[in-house]
C-alpha cells in the first residue's frame, strides 16, 4: 500500500497537464443540440491530433495504450483542467470501439476504429428496449437474414444522442423464437439507413438526451455482424472488462467539487432562521460534513478499484459498489442543496449552472448503467455470493 507515484508517472502528469492547459477548448460546452455534437467532435479531433485519442486503446489500433495508473492521472488532470465531458463520443470510444477491437474482423476494424479516434464517426448504443430495461436479455427487436442482409424490425429506447450518431452498436434477435441470451447478434448499424426513425425524449431536466429508435425493415449487410450471427450476447458482454475504472475518477472529482461549491454557497445564503449564513446552522453544516466525508471515501474507493483492476485486469463486480455509492452521494448532495438554497430552489437554473437543473438531472444517477436495484443485486450475488432468485 502506498500513495506514491513513480518519477515516470509524475513526468507523465506534467505532460498531461501542459497539454490540457494549452489545448482545452475555450467557452462553455452547449448541453444540447447540434452545437453540442459539433463541440464534442471538434474536441475529439483536437485530442486525436495531440495523440490523446483512445487513451485506453492498444497502440496497435491507434490508441495511446496507457497503463491504468496513467489513465487515472489523465482523468485527474482532465477534471482539474475543467476539460469538457466526452459527450457524444462516449459510446464510440468506450464501448463500440473496444467491442470492435475484441471481436471484429480486420476489415471492420479498419473501417471504424481510426474514424472513431479522429471524431469522424459518432456512435450510439442500441441495447435497451421498452420491454427490456433492467432485463436486457428479454429484448425482442428482430433481425431476419435475407440474402446478404439482416432486415431489422423493432424498437430501441434510451439511446443517448442517437440524433447525432453515425453508427449504432445494435443488438437484435436473429434466431426467431430464441430465448434470453441465445440467438442474438451484434450489428454495426449505419444510422443513415432507410427505415430508421429517431425520436428524442426530453428528460425531467429538459434535455433531449435519450432517444427512441424505430426500425422499419432496415437492411443491414451481413458483413456488419460482429463476432458471428447468434453470438451477440457474448460480444456485448465482452467489453464489461473494459469498463472505465479510472474514468470513474472524473465523476468522483466532479462530486467533490460540487460538495465544496455547496459549502461555499452555504456561506452566502441564509440559514432557515434568516439570521445567519446557512453554514452556521449545525444541522446544515453536518449534512455538508457528511457529504465531504463521503466524496473523500469515494476517491479512496476509486483508487482501490484502480489497484484492483491493475492486478486482475478487470474492475470486477466491486465497480457496482462505486456506482451505487456515487449515485447515492450525488442525489443526497442535490437534495441537501435544494433545502439550503431556499427560494432559489423555485428557479430553474441555466444549463450546467446553479443547483436546480442539476438536481433534476441527478435522478439519472440511480438509473444509468443499471438501476440502483440492479447494482444491489450484482453486489449481493457477485461480491457477497448470495443466491440468485429463481
Amino acid at each position, binding site marked *: 500500500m502506498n500513495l506514491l507515484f513513480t518519477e515516470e508517472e509524475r513526468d507523465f502528469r506534467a505532460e498531461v497537464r501542459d497539454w490540457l492547459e494549452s489545448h482545452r477548448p475555450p467557452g462553455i460546452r452547449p448541453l444540447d443540440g447540434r452545437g453540442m455534437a459539433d463541440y464534442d467532435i471538434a474536441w475529439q479531433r483536437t485530442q486525436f491530433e495531440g495523440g490523446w485519442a483512445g487513451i485506453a486503446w492498444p497502440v496497435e489500433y491507434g490508441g495511446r495504450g496507457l497503463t491504468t495508473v496513467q489513465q487515472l492521472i489523465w482523468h485527474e488532470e482532465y477534471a482539474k483542467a475543467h476539460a469538457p465531458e466526452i459527450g457524444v463520443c462516449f459510446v464510440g470510444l468506450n464501448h463500440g470501439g473496444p467491442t470492435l477491437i475484441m471481436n471484429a474482423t480486420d476489415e471492420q476494424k479498419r473501417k471504424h476504429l481510426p474514424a472513431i479516434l479522429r471524431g469522424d464517426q459518432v456512435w450510439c448504443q442500441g441495447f435497451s428496449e421498452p420491454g427490456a430495461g*433492467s432485463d436486457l436479455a*428479454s429484448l425482442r427487436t428482430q433481425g431476419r437474414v435475407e440474402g446478404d442482409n439482416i432486415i431489422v424490425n423493432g424498437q430501441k429506447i434510451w439511446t443517448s444522442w442517437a440524433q447525432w450518431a453515425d453508427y449504432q452498436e445494435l443488438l437484435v434477435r436473429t434466431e426467431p423464437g430464441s430465448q434470453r441470451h441465445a440467438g442474438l447478434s451484434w450489428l454495426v448499424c449505419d444510422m443513415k439507413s432507410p427505415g430508421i426513425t429517431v425520436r428524442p425524449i426530453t428528460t425531467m431536466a429538459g434535455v433531449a438526451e435519450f432517444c427512441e429508435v424505430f426500425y422499419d425493415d432496415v437492411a443491414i449487410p451481413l458483413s456488419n455482424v460482429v463476432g458471428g450471427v447468434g453470438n451477440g450476447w457474448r460480444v456485448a458482454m465482452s467489453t464489461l472488462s473494459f469498463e472505465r475504472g479510472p474514468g470513474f475518477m472524473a465523476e468522483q472529482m466532479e462530486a467533490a467539487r460540487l460538495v465544496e461549491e455547496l459549502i461555499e454557497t452555504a456561506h452566502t445564503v441564509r440559514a432557515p432562521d434568516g439570521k445567519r449564513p446557512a453554514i452556521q446552522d449545525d*444541522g446544515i453544516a453536518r449534512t455538508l460534513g457528511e457529504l465531504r466525508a463521503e466524496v473523500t471515501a469515494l476517491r479512496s474507493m476509486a483508487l482501490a478499484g484502480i489497484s484492483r483492476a491493475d492486478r486482475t485486469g478487470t474492475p470486477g463486480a466491486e465497480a457496482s459498489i462505486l456506482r451505487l455509492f456515487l449515485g447515492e452521494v450525488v442525489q443526497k448532495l442535490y437534495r441537501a442543496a435544494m*433545502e439550503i438554497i431556499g*427560494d432559489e430552489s423555485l428557479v430553474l437554473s441555466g444549463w450546467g449552472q446553479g443547483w436546480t437543473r442539476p438536481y433534476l438531472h441527478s*435522478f439519472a444517477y440511480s*438509473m444509468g448503467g443499471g438501476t440502483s436495484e440492479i447494482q444491489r443485486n450484482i453486489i449481493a450475488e457477485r461480491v457477497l455470493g448470495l443466491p440468485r432468485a429463481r
Partner: protein
Amino acid sequence: MDLLPSADQEALLAGAREFLVTALPVDASRWRDRDAVEARALKEFASLGWYGVGLPEPAGGLGLGAAEEALLLAEAGKYLAPIGLLAGMLAARVAWSTGLQDVASTILTGECRVGLVIPAQSGNVQLIDATASEQVVVLDSSTLCLASCSAFHDREPQPSLDQGVTLERASQIIPQVRPCESSGATLYLHAVVLVCALMVGLSEAVMEVAVAHAKQRQQFGQSIGVFQAVKHPLADMAVRAEAARFQTMMAALSIADARPDASFQTHAAAVIAGRAATANAHAAVQIFGAMGYTQECVVHHFVKRAVLLNRIIDGRLKQIDFLIAEKPSL
C-alpha cells in the same frame, strides 16, 4: 371522535372527485394547454363554491370549516390543482377577516383571480402564478395580507422549476392590507394546513401512479410489483402518505376548533406532509426507472410541485424549527 370523513363530507368529496378528474387531468392534455385548462377550472371552482368553503354563509361561503377545506384540497392536490385555488381560498379568508367584503365577493365569484407571494432572500419576494391575477395573497410566517398585483412595479419573470406555475421576482412592498397580528398568526397556520392538504394529495396520487405502474410493468417475466425492491419502497410510500393525511386532518380539526395545540399540530403536519410529498415523488421516479426521469412520464410534475409546496411554507427545516420551539402536546 372520528378522524374519517362523515357521510356529508364523503358526499362533498365525491362531487369534488367527479369534477377534478375531468377538469384537471394530470396528463399530456393538461400541460399542452395549461393556461386555458387551469383558467377554466379556477372559474369553475368559484361556481362550486370552493373559495368560500370555510367562510360563513352570510359572507357568501358554504359555512363549513378548515376540515372540509383540507379534505377538498387533499383531493385537489392529487390533480396538482393550480396555485390560484389555494391563493383564492386564502385571499377570500383574509378579505373577509379584515372586513373587505367587496374584495371577498369578487374572489368568491371567480371574477378576481389571485396569485401567491412568498418572501425571498435580500428583501425580495417571489410571485407565483400572479401573471394572470389581479390580486395576490402575501404569505409569510408573521402575517398574511392581500395586495394588488399592480403594487409590485419591478416584477421580473423567472424560469420556474415547476412548469405548472409562472414565477416572478420583485422587491418587497409594504402590504396594503394588514390584518391584526393575532389573527395573522392564526391565518398563517390556516395557510400552512391548506398547503399540507395539497401535499397529502400529492403524496397519495404519486403513490397511486407508482402502484399502477408496478402492477402493470413486466420485467424478468413477471410484474415488477412482486419484487421486494419495488414492493417495500411502495409500502414506505403508503406509510408516509397515511401519516401525512391524518396529521394534516388532525391539524385542520385543531384549527377549526381553535384548540390550544393548533400551532403544534400544524407544524407537525408541515414536517410530515412536506417529507411525504418530496420522498414519495422521489421514490416514484425510481419505481418508473428511466421513464420516470423523462417528461413523458407524469411523475416529474409531482417532483417539481413538491419542491414548490414545501417552499411556500418556507421549507421543511423552518417548520421543524417552529415545532421544536413549541410546547409539547401530550
